[in-house]
């Protein structure tokens, strides 16, 4: 018997040794003999017809390999949800940086010069560069009405509430694009063999997404496509869908040249050409009673999807479901719309629509508080969802959640009340103003609605010939701790020490499809499957005499014996939707998520009116995420997410010009450094939870949702000026303060 439980312990990160010694192999650390390097010639206009492609005749083009859309053996698309996005532009371009032509050469330096020696002439077409222009439809750039997707959530009779309202509070809130800024840029290596087909090694989140995309693009059967994840240096959603594009490019070059091809983006190419968080606009109109209770309201949530549909419909879905926040709405109408523009497609980024709509909700709560004359604390307390009540999709809250209690604890931890008083008192004279702000929110774990049922994920657990155990899943590690947590769960279920369990490298030839590593689903959904599969191993060995409480040595002996006799010992588990769960995809009604994680975040800020720079001075992050499987990893997820949220609010601004990102460098797109961040103080509330393996809910995305509204609320508290758009760089704060002074003097 092992001495203590594995789950709940901060065991060493499985791949940690390689990471602290430099031995870990990321994609650019891998080299294959005879390998060429690939590069991409991209569109320089937001929209146009390609008139002519010409090559500088003075350039030495010997040894170069060229690929255009004509070389694609299958369908010229990146198969994802839809297939509207071409792998290579064919005749027309719809956004800046759209790939048009691919080059490969043995010499990296020469390749860079070659890209500049290709000239493309365009007949420009008018580009659509705002959501409003897209909605006006004066130029149709996608489908019949520039609309990728709409959703409507309708609960109760909203029309009847306006007459009963003591206050009607309106607001419009916007958020900007945000770059994922993983420190390792996108990269892949493709190897083609006419017998075995294509093999892709890459920095990626979802091996089976790439697998599906390669089958369609290259016209290959499933068994002739193999996708392997290399060690991945951060992703945050940015390597969910994009790797299918860069993998497609390397694969096409490899097929044409019959040599291995590596494509590694440099930082500017990665920032300007790949996906970002969707910019958003949310409008609220809320009926409120004089007691400060929300009676009902309308919410309109619109996101800018960029030029192709990619994941916008799913981002929109999560955005609209989270738009009502952690509050009870007797009736509500939420309209969501994802529109097309001529920007590079926006994509997945931690939070996936929720940080956008929750920013609006939590800013709007402070506005409602002001209208009614209540404090930000009291307005939230009076409207929190309670057990037995329903969310905007009419999902019944079955957990014994007490958000009022969480709020009170967060107020104490942040010393909110004393600070609030002190800041009001001290903010008079000098240029430095202080403020404190709250965000209360929730985040649904796993795929939305019927998503997990459609995915039908499979996980395997294998007892090996040497008696150790291996987890087989396509779930990827990119820093969050997938390897560690899934091994912990298997060890716990098999009653073995953690060191006896390893996890296979995600390789579509070796592991089943456990679904994409997204949506905060890995610990909860995939973890449950690991546990079920591990129990299957236990049952098999029990039938052969390994009963009750065995020692690890006894397990090893039984495992070895089984493998010797039967060739292998494997157990697979497939996702089985829980009984009685109702979700209506048409009406967007029912159980949107298996469960929600809940949180209260409190930010203390300082704004220096001599520089107009805002800094966060203290940050309290209190959350309920079910059982904490690994305290250090969990704390790291929260602190890292909060840091990205602080960046979203105060530092990270994408500057666009004619559809192209102008600041695609780390020198001018600024993410928080160690000197910019406050102490991020992380606290967990643990409740018994029926979901997930050993009670875990999703955790990864939650911390992205709360920091921005808490910070904007704190800045308003400090300055008495409304801030309804992020990011808030010094020039933005200056502008808002100047405008408010201007309107006061009128």
């Amino acid at each position: 018997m092992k001495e203590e439980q594995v789950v709940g312990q901060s065991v060493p990160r499985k791949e940690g040794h390689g990471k602290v010694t430099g031995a870990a192999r990321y994609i650019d650390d891998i080299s294959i003999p005879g390998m060429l390097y690939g590069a991409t010639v991209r569109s320089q206009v937001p929209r146009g017809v390609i008139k002519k492609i010409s090559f500088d005749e003075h350039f030495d083009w010997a040894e170069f390999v060229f690929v255009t859309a004509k070389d694609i053996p299958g369908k010229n698309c990146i198969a994802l949800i839809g297939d509207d996005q071409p792998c290579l532009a064919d005749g027309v371009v719809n956004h800046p940086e759209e790939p048009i032509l691919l080059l490969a050469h043995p010499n990296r330096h020469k390749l860079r010069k070659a890209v500049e020696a290709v000239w493309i002439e365009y007949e420009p077409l008018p580009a659509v560069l705002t959501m409003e222009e897209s909605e006006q439809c004066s130029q149709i750039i996608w489908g019949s009405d520039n609309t990728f997707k709409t959703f409507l959530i309708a609960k109760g009779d909203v029309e009847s509430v306006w007459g009963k309202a003591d206050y009607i509070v309106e607001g419009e809130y916007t958020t900007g694009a945000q770059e994922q800024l993983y420190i390792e840029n996108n990269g892949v290596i493709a190897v083609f063999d006419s017998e075995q087909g294509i093999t892709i090694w890459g920095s990626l989140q979802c091996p089976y997404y790439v697998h599906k995309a390669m089958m369609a693009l290259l016209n290959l059967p499933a068994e002739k496509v193999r996708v392997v994840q290399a060690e991945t240096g951060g992703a945050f959603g940015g390597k969910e869908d994009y790797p299918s594009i860069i993998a497609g490019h390397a694969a096409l070059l490899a097929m044409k040249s019959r040599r291995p091809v590596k494509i590694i983006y440099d930082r500017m190419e990665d920032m300007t050409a790949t996906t970002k968080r969707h910019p958003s606009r949310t409008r609220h109109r809320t009926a409120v009673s004089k007691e400060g209770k929300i009676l009902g309201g309308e919410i309109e949530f619109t996101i800018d999807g960029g030029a192709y549909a990619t994941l916008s419909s799913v981002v929109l879905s999560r955005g609209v479901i989270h738009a009502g926040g952690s509050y009870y709405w007797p009736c509500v109408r939420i309209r969501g719309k994802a529109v097309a523009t001529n920007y590079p497609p926006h994509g997945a980024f931690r939070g996936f629509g929720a940080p956008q709509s929750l920013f609006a909700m939590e800013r709007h709560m402070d506005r409602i508080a002001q209208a009614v004359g209540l404090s930000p604390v009291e307005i939230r307390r009076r409207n929190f969802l309670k057990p037995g009540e329903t969310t905007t999709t009419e999902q019944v809250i079955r957990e014994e959640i007490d958000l009022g209690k969480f709020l009170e604890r967060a107020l104490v931890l942040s010393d909110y009340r004393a600070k609030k008083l002190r800041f009001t008192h001290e903010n008079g004279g000098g240029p430095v103003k202080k403020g404190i702000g709250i965000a209360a929110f929730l985040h649904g774990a796993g795929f939305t609605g019927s998503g997990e049922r459609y995915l039908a994920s499979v996980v395997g657990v294998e007892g090996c010939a040497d008696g150790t155990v291996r987890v087989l899943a396509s779930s990827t590690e990119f820093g969050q701790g997938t390897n560690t947590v899934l091994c912990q769960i298997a060890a716990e279920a098999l009653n073995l020490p953690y060191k006896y369990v390893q996890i296979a490298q995600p390789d579509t030839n070796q592991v089943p499809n456990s679904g994409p590593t997204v949506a905060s689903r890995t610990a909860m959904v995939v973890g449950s499957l690991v546990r079920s599969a591990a129990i299957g191993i236990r049952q098999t060995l029990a039938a052969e005499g390994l009963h009750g409480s065995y020692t690890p040595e006894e397990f090893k002996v039984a495992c070895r014996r089984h493998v010797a006799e039967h060739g292998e010992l494997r157990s697979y588990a497939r996702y089985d939707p829980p009984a009685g769960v109702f979700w209506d995809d048409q009406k967007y009604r029912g159980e949107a998520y298996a469960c929600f994680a809940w949180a209260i975040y409190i930010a203390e800020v300082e704004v220096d009116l001599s520089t107009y720079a805002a800094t966060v001075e203290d940050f309290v992050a209190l959350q309920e995420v079910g059982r904490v499987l690994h305290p250090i990893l969990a704390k790291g997820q929260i602190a890292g997410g909060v840091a990205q949220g602080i960046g979203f609010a105060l530092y990270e601004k994408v500057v666009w010009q004619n559809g192209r990102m102008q600041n695609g460098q780390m020198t001018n797109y600024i993410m928080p450094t160690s000197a910019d961040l406050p102490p991020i103080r992380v606290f967990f509330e643990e409740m018994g939870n029926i979901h997930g393996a050993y009670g875990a809910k999703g955790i990864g995305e939650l911390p992205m949702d709360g920091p921005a509204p808490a910070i904007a609320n704190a800045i308003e508290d400090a300055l008495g000026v409304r801030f309804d758009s992020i990011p808030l760089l010094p020039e933005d704060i200056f502008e808002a303060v100047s405008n408010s002074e201007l309107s006061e003097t009128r």
Partner: protein
Amino acid sequence: MIGNSKRPGKCEVSLTVNGEPKTVRVYPMERLLDVLRLELGLTGTKEGCGEGECGSCSVVMDGKLVNSCLIPALQVAGATLTTIEGLALGPRLTALQAAFLKCGGAQCGICTPGMILASRQLLDKKPKPTLEEIREGLSGNLCRCTGYMQIFEAVMEAASGNSQ
């Protein structure tokens, strides 16, 4: 004219890397980062931005922390370098590496080699740094995963000697 420009020829550069003398034939303006990764096979040094902002390519050169993406090969002639591969000799981790593992200072791991070298330089200068000194001392090395808190804890832990 593109493609016809005469590049200066390769030259021999001798240097000491992780205690071993090395001689490489490289172009004078080649980046130290590429010399380490491509010529010497030391891929533990990572490229994040290629312009000296992120610190992923940090190495120690003659006792100073430098961004190897900004150093031309010619400049390292006769220099003594330490890369991440030069810290743990054999399977035993240094106290600092062990502290990064224990405290959660490494998540995706791509900034980790640079971050560990920056931390080592900091501890060499200030064996018992304050939190403020750590915050400032590591501000040239970007980490997108951790929010830095557990990196600070790792440096504190190593400074306190608990991970020895």
